[in-house]
C-alpha cells in the first residue's frame, strides 16, 4: 500500500540535515523513553516513596539504603535522572513536531494532482473503466464527478495535463492537525508540570541557599536558611494542622526526611471545625470555618470542605485532614491500691489532661507518665438488634492514652467515659494493649445501682485491706467450724491463714496466680482436689467480703441478696481477677471534657496548572482528530488516447485510518461513479 505516510517519510528523509536532530526526533528514541519512564514509574509505586529514612534502613539494610538513596529511588519522580528523562521526552517530542509540522501542513494543502497513472493503478483501492467518448464530453464527466463527490463533503480540484485530466477529491486533512495538537499538548503539559515541580527548590538546595531542617522544632525556631519567603518558591504544596482558634501564616513542606517552612503572604485562622457523621458513624463531611487575615486587603471569612477548596491570591487552601487540637480532659484517678495518693486523703485524685500533652502520676509502684493521644466524642459501631438486623450504636466519648512507667515501658489504653451495655449489664470499659499491633484486652468494671464504680472500688478496697481480710477470715472460720473442732485454735488459725494467703494470691494475679501456686507446691495427683478446695475457700472469702460491702451500703443481707447484686459480685470478681495484668495501678476515669478540634489544611500554589490544563485540552482534541478523522483522497483520471473512441477512467483512493470502513466507501463510490459516468 502506498500510504501518504510512507511518502511523508520519504520527504522527511530528503530534509535530513542534522544527524543529531534526526536522532532526537527519532521514533526509536521516543519509544525507548516512554518505556523507561513507565518502568521508572513502576519503581516509584512499588517502593513506598518519601518515608522516613530509618524505616528504609530497617527494610533494606544500610548498604542497599545507601545505594537506593544515591539513585534517588526514595523520591523517584523528582530524582535528577527522572527529570532528565522527562526533559528528553519533551525535547524529542518537540523536535518531532518541529520536523514534521511543515511537511504535514504541506501535505494537508496538497491535492496531489500530479499522481501518475501507474501509481494510481497500483493503489490498493483502484479500478478503471471506459466511457464512450461519442456520448460524453470530458467536461460533462468532470462536472458529474465533482457534484457527486462534492456532496460527501470532499474538496475537489482538477487540472488538465497534456494527455489526461486529473480530478482529486480530498477530505479529513485536519487529521494531520490532530498529530500536531497531541504532540504540542504533551510538550505544553510537561512545561506546566515543570513550573509546578520542585526544580527551583532543588537548585537552591544544591546551591546551598536553603537547607532542609531535620530537627523537631516549633515553627518559630526554624532558622532562616530553612524558611522560604512568600513568593520565593513559584509553586509548593504544604500542610499545617490548625487547632480551633489558632492562626498560622506558614505551612510545612515535607522534603525527603525533613521539612521546610514556607511563609504565606497572609494568615489563616481556624474559627471552627465540624465533622458530620452518617448514621453508621462514618464521616459525612469535614468543614472548616476560616478567617483570612491579609494586611494588604480586608479580612474575610470562608468555609472550606473536602472537594471545595478556597482559592485566594493564587493560593489554594484545601481541607485535607482533621485531628484533635488539644481537647481538655477532666479525669479521676481511681487507685487499685489502698493507701491514699500522696497529699490527698480521698481515695481518688482529680487531674486535668490535654490531648497531645502528658501528665505524671505518682504511685507507690513508681511514677507513671500519661500521654494523652486522642479524644473521640463518638464511638459508633455496628451491631445487631433483637431481630438480628444491623444497627449502629454510639458508645459515647473515649480517650486514648499511653501510660509509661519509670523504665520507659508503655501500654496503650482506651477508656470509655460512659458505661456500656453488654449482655444486658452495664460496664465501664477500659481496653489495654502492650503494642500497637495487638488488639485491646478489655477490663469490665460493673456499675452499681447509681451507675457508678463506687461499689466496685469499695469491694476492691476491702479485699486489699490486709487487716479486714484477716478479720473476715477469722470470722468466717469461726462461724463455719464444726462443734468438735471449736477448741482446735491451731487448726482455726491455719484455715484463716490459708484464706488470707489465697485472697492475697488472687489480688496479685487472679485465678492464674492461685493455679501457679498449686502447680508449684502440690503433688500432681492431688492438684485437682486441692484446686477445688481452694476455690471453695476463696469463693467463701470473697462472698463474705462482698456481704460486708452490701452491709456498709445499708442493705439487709440476712434474707439473701438480689439477683442483680449476685451478678454484680460475679462480674466484679472476674474484673478483679484480671487486674494484676492491667498494667497501671489505677483506673483513669474521664469525667468531663472540652473538645477542641484541629483541622489539617493543605495550602498549595500551582501557577502551572492552567498551562497543564491547556495542554490536556490540546491533547484530547488532537487524539480524537487523529483517531476519528481519516484523511481520505480519491483520484479520478480521465485519459483519452489520441483518436481513441473512449475515455479511460481510472478511479483510485487511499486513506490513513479505518481501512475497513474506507474499503466499503470506495466500493460504493466506484460502483456509483461507474454507473453515473457511463450513464446514457
Amino acid at each position, binding site marked *: 500500500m502506498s500510504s501518504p505516510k510512507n511518502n511523508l517519510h520519504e520527504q522527511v528523509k530528503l530534509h535530513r540535515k542534522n544527524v543529531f536532530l534526526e536522532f532526537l526526533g527519532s521514533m526509536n528514541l521516543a519509544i525507548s523513553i*516512554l518505556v523507561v519512564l513507565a518502568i521508572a*514509574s513502576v519503581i516509584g*509505586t512499588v517502593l513506598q516513596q518519601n518515608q522516613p529514612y530509618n524505616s528504609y534502613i530497617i527494610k533494606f539494610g544500610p548498604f542497599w539504603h545507601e545505594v537506593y538513596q544515591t539513585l534517588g529511588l526514595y523520591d523517584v519522580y523528582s530524582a535528577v535522572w527522572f527529570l532528565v528523562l522527562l526533559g528528553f521526552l519533551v525535547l524529542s517530542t518537540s523536535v518531532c513536531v518541529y520536523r514534521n509540522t511543515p511537511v504535514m501542513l504541506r501535505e494537508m494543502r496538497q491535492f496531489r494532482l500530479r499522481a501518475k497513472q501507474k501509481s494510481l493503478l497500483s493503489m490498493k483501492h483502484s479500478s478503471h473503466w471506459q466511457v464512450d467518448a461519442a456520448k460524453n464530453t470530458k467536461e460533462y464527466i468532470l462536472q458529474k464527478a465533482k457534484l457527486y463527490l462534492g456532496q460527501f463533503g470532499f474538496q475537489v480540484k482538477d487540472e488538465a495535463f497534456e494527455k489526461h485530466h486529473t480530478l482529486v477529491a480530498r477530505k479529513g486533512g485536519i487529521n494531520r492537525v490532530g498529530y500536531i495538537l497531541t504532540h504540542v499538548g504533551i510538550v505544553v503539559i510537561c512545561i506546566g508540570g515543570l513550573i509546578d515541580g520542585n526544580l527551583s527548590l532543588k537548585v537552591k538546595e544544591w546551591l546551598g541557599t536553603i537547607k532542609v531542617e531535620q530537627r523537631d522544632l516549633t515553627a518559630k525556631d526554624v532558622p532562616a536558611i530553612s524558611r522560604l519567603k512568600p513568593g520565593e518558591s513559584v509553586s509548593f504544596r504544604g500542610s499545617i494542622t490548625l487547632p480551633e482558634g489558632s492562626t498560622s501564616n506558614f505551612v510545612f513542606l515535607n522534603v525527603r526526611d525533613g521539612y521546610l517552612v514556607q511563609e504565606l503572604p497572609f494568615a489563616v485562622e481556624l474559627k471552627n471545625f465540624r465533622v458530620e457523621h*452518617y*448514621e453508621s458513624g462514618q464521616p459525612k*463531611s469535614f468543614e472548616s470555618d476560616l478567617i483570612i487575615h491579609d494586611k494588604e486587603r480586608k479580612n474575610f471569612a470562608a468555609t472550606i470542605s473536602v472537594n471545595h477548596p478556597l482559592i485566594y491570591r493564587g493560593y489554594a487552601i484545601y481541607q485535607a485532614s482533621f485531628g484533635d487540637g488539644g481537647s481538655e480532659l477532666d479525669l479521676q484517678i481511681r487507685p487499685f491500691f489502698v493507701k491514699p495518693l500522696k497529699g490527698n486523703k480521698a481515695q481518688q485524685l482529680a487531674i486535668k489532661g490535654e490531648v497531645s500533652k502528658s501528665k505524671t502520676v505518682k504511685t507507690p509502684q513508681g511514677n507513671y507518665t500519661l500521654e494523652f493521644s486522642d479524644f473521640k466524642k463518638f464511638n459508633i459501631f455496628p451491631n445487631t438488634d433483637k431481630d438480628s438486623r444491623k444497627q449502629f450504636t454510639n458508645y459515647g466519648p473515649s480517650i486514648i492514652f499511653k501510660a509509661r512507667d519509670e523504665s520507659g515501658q508503655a501500654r496503650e489504653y482506651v477508656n470509655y467515659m460512659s458505661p456500656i451495655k453488654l449482655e444486658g449489664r452495664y460496664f465501664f470499659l477500659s481496653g489495654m494493649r502492650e503494642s500497637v499491633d495487638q488488639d485491646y484486652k478489655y477490663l469490665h468494671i460493673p456499675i452499681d445501682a447509681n451507675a457508678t464504680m463506687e461499689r466496685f472500688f469499695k469491694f476492691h478496697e476491702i479485699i486489699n485491706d490486709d487487716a479486714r481480710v484477716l478479720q473476715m477470715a477469722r470470722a468466717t472460720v469461726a462461724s463455719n467450724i464444726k462443734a468438735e473442732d471449736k477448741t482446735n485454735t491451731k487448726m482455726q488459725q491455719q484455715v484463716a491463714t490459708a484464706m488470707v494467703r489465697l485472697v492475697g494470691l488472687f489480688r496479685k494475679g487472679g485465678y492464674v496466680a492461685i493455679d501457679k501456686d498449686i502447680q508449684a507446691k502440690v503433688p500432681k495427683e492431688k492438684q485437682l482436689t486441692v484446686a477445688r478446695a481452694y476455690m471453695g475457700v476463696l469463693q467463701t472469702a470473697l462472698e463474705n467480703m462482698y456481704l460486708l460491702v452490701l452491709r456498709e451500703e445499708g442493705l439487709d443481707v440476712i434474707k439473701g441478696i438480689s439477683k442483680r447484686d449476685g451478678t454484680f459480685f460475679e462480674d466484679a470478681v472476674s474484673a478483679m481477677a484480671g487486674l494484676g495484668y492491667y498494667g497501671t495501678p489505677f483506673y483513669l476515669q474521664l469525667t468531663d471534657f472540652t473538645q477542641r478540634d484541629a483541622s489539617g489544611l493543605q495550602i498549595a500554589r500551582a501557577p502551572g496548572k492552567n498551562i497543564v*490544563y491547556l495542554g490536556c485540552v490540546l491533547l484530547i482534541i488532537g487524539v480524537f482528530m487523529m*483517531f476519528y478523522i481519516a484523511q481520505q483522497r480519491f483520484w479520478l483520471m480521465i485519459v483519452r488516447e489520441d483518436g481513441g473512441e473512449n475515455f479511460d477512467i481510472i478511479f483510485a483512493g487511499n486513506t490513513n485510518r479505518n481501512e475497513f470502513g474506507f474499503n466499503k466507501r470506495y466500493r460504493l463510490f466506484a460502483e456509483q461513479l461507474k454507473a453515473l459516468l457511463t450513464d446514457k
Partner: protein
Amino acid sequence: MSENILPQQFQQQSWVKHLTIFDWLYAVAMLVGCVYAYNEYASYMDEYEIGILFLTGASLVGLGWAWKPFRLLFIIVAALSLIAINIYNPAMQALASEGITGQTAIDVLTDDSEKSKFFLKFLISSTSATMWMSALFFMATITYFIELFGRSEFAGKVATAMVWSAVTMGLVGLMVRWFESYLVGSDVGHIPVSNLYEVFILFAIITAMIYLYYEVRYETRAMGGFVLLIISASIGFLLWYHFDKGASEIKPLVPALQSYWMKIHVPANFVGYGAFALASMIGIAFLIKERALRKNPAGLLASRLPATDILDDVMYKSIALGFAFFTIATVLGAMWAAEAWGGYWSWDPKETWALIVWLNYAAWLHMRFTKGWRGAPMAWWAVIGLFVTTFAFLGVNMFLSGLHSYGEL
C-alpha cells in the same frame, strides 16, 4: 445545481434526512426525561451536575442516532427502572408506616417474607437484576462457543440476544441501585460507580456494549466467545465479591468522593478499561487464528475465526477508543485531584499506574502508526496490555497504598 444534473439515485442525503421518526421520538423522549429530572431534582444538584445531566442526554441521543439498537436498549432499561421505582415507592411508604425504613425495608421487599414484592425479589431489584446479568453473561459465553465450534447460526443469534439481555439487566441493576441508595438514606444516595462492586458491573456492561457494536459492524459473531471470556471472569470476581465479602451492600460516600467529578471520571475510565480488555481478547483470538493458519489451515479454528485483518482492525479500533477515553478519564481525574487532594498530580500509585497504562498504549499506537507494525507482535502486546491494565485497575488497590483507596478489597 446538483439536483438538476445528478439523477436521484446518486444523490447523497445529509445525515439529518436519514433520521427516522423513531429517532426523533427518541430524542424528544430524552429531552423530556432530562427536563423532568431537572424540574424534579435541580435543587439537589449543583450547576456542574445540571450540566452533566443535559450533556449526558445529548450524548445518549447522539449514541442512539449513531448506533440504532441503542435506542431500544435505552427505552427498555428506562421502562424497567421506572417500573422498579414505582413498585418501590408505595411499598416503602407502607413499610415506613410500620417503622421499617432504609436498607431493612429494601431487604423486606426482596427477601422471603410475605411482604416481599415478586418483581423486585425475582427480577428488577438491583441485586436480582445483577444476578440475571451475571447468569446471562455466563450462558452467552458458552453459547458463543457453541456457535463457533458447532457452526450453528441459531446459537449465535441466541448468544447475541443473551448479551443484549445481560446488558439490559446490568443497566437496570445499576439504575435501580442508584434509586435504592436514596432509599437507604437520603444522605447516602449516590451514583453507583463508587466502589469496586459497582464498577465491576459497569466494566462488564461497557465491554459487552463495545463488543455488540463491533459484532454488527464486522458481521461476525466469532469474536463473541473470546470477549465474553473476560466479561465472565469479571462476573466471577463480582459474584465472589458479592457472596464472600458482602460487597453489594450500599454504603455512604466518604467526603472525598462527594463530587460531580465522579460522575464523569469513573465512566470515562471504564470505557478505557473495557476497550483495552476487549482488545486483549481480540489479540488472543488473533494469535489463535494465526497459529491455526500455520498448523492446520483447513481446520475448524482457521476457518471459523474471522480473517486476521479484521481481528487486527478491531484490535486497533478498540485500543484507539480505549486510549481516547482513558486520556479523558486521566485528565478528569487530575482535575478532580486538584480539587480534592490539593494537586493535579501527586504521583499517587493509582495515578502513576494510569500513566503507565497510558504510556504503554501510546507506545503501541506509535508503533502501528509510524512503523506500520501489524499482526502477532501487536496482538501479544495487546494481551500484555491487559495485565498492565488489570494491575492499574485492581492490583494497585490490592497491593499498593495511596490516596486512591476507595476500591479496596
